[in-house]
């Protein structure tokens, strides 16, 4: 079965420190990988995606993500966290052989404290 795991329900980090939000997946083939952010009572906003090529993908608001094929992971990172980064982050996967579906993780709540 296809699945996406975000092993941490919550990540706490101090402002100015680096942050990592983890994502691993169990999807056949080499899927397309995405990160979205959701603020309270809002829809999802696109951050970045991995299609092919360089394993380090840069996205919006200073975020980047590292694709690791052997570990089937796509961790979201930022070198220096801001209080305004506090939100709910979702990893999503789109299989190449069944691209009409998106699979989302359960979400990780990021708390950045001043």
């Amino acid at each position, binding site marked *: 079965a296809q699945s*996406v795991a975000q092993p941490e329900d919550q990540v706490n980090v101090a402002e100015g420190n680096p942050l990592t939000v983890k994502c691993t997946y169990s999807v056949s083939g080499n899927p*397309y990988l*995405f990160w*979205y952010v959701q603020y309270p*009572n*809002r*829809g*999802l*906003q*696109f951050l970045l*995606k991995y*299609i092919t090529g360089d394993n380090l993908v840069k996205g919006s608001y200073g975020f980047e993500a590292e694709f690791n094929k052997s570990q089937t992971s796509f961790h979201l990172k930022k070198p220096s966290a801001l209080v305004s980064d506090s939100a709910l982050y*979702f990893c999503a996967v*789109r299989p*190449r052989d*069944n*691209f*009409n*579906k*998106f*699979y*989302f*993780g*359960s*979400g990780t709540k990021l708390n950045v404290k001043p």
Partner: protein
Amino acid sequence: DTGVTQSPTHLIKTRGQQVTLRCSPISGHKSVSWYQQVLGQGPQFIFQYYEKEERGRGNFPDRFSARQFPNYSSELNVNALLLGDSALYLCASSLETITDTQYFGPGTRLTVL
């Protein structure tokens, strides 16, 4: 550019009733997908439509149906509402290729009493 729009913003229904949610995609986007997001969980895929045809369906009962119109807007219908249908319903639009990003609307918050 106007993003994905959804209406209504909030909706309260009682068990057994029927509901219709509406979505207008970003101009130029031909694909619309629907998701259900229960509080505390990630979005669950319900349907994808492209050029008025259903291209994908998630694991939802037949009480859930959708359609896409010639202008690419879409409706999601849910019949015989259950308490468990209470959720945020998200619509996303994208261009036609499989690598395209899905852009989400603000959602419709459905409460079933």
